[in-house]
């Protein structure tokens, strides 16, 4: 069962989200962007995921920082995301048990 008002809200969300996904690319194609903006886009990934990870860890308090550091160390040595992520969850279980 799909109600008309719910359908309208879902379509509105989908359109808004697609505009976000495509918008940056469309603008980049339509206007000549300065070289500085191109260099910013090339330098985006690291700072972007830093800005993602830091508040996400802070939400957990000190256990977040310790478990996050463990994930990064394990990812740097094993290069295996599944192992790193599961180790992070395991570290959080252990840290919460410690209090």
């Amino acid at each position, binding site marked *: 069962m799909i109600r008309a008002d719910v359908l309208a809200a879902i379509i509105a969300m989908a359109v808004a989200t697609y505009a976000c996904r495509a918008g*940056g690319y469309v603008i980049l194609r339509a206007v000549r962007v300065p070289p500085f903006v191109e260099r910013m886009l090339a330098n*985006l990934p690291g700072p972007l995921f830093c*800005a993602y990870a830091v508040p996400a860890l802070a939400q957990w308090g000190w256990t*977040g920082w310790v478990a996050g550091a463990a994930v*990064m160390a394990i990812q740097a040595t094993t290069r295996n995301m599944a192992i790193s992520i599961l180790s992070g969850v395991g570290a959080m279980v252990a840290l919460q048990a410690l209090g």
Partner: protein
Amino acid sequence: MKRGQTPVTGGAMTMAGFKRGAREALPLVIGTFPFGIVVGVISDAKDLSLAETMLMCAVVFAGSSQLLALELWADPAPIMAAAIAAFAVNIRLAPMGAALAPWLDRLRGWKRWATIATLVDHSYALSAADMQRGGRDAGYLLGVGVGLWVFWMVAVALGYGLGSVVRVPPGHPLYFAAAATFCAILMAFWRGFARDFAPWVLSGGIALLLWWLGLPAPWPLIAGALSGAALGAARSGARP
């Protein structure tokens, strides 16, 4: 990677790249799955039908904006508020699409616009890392996106069905998988102390400060990411 021996659009999107992307998306599912279950549980709590829940997941496919919209859900459905919530949370995807231009430019017609429809943080992350290694196959981007989409649908359906039975309380270590995913992703972008340390510290510091001041998502993320990227750009421009 067979570079230089293909015409301009040759290898723009290959099945091999798609399969590689879908395979490499699997570990990330550990991080997205608990989140999808939460979205399913809340959709059920907000009296959405299973069909409505799955439709939203299929066409919006952006977890944090779905959660925010569900927070302010009412009867009748808040059309304008839901759209604004989706836009505000997902505007972070705009610079990612722009940064993927070297791959998207080589695609034609519907392939380009359909690939963009699957763009999420994780598929951007893996693709940007692949791009840094010299990859240029947009099939990889699509493969990661579709792989995550399939498991996102499964997780939300599971949460919707089992939500009232299996309760995972807030603060459960399982939810740490999402933050852990971003920590693991981060390591793919480390190019050395001289280039990355200062932009990363600036970005993380600003994001933390704004988050601590109580700014809602996605502003700490966007302000941190753009200032870090600007510092990186200024430094790479200054270098001979």
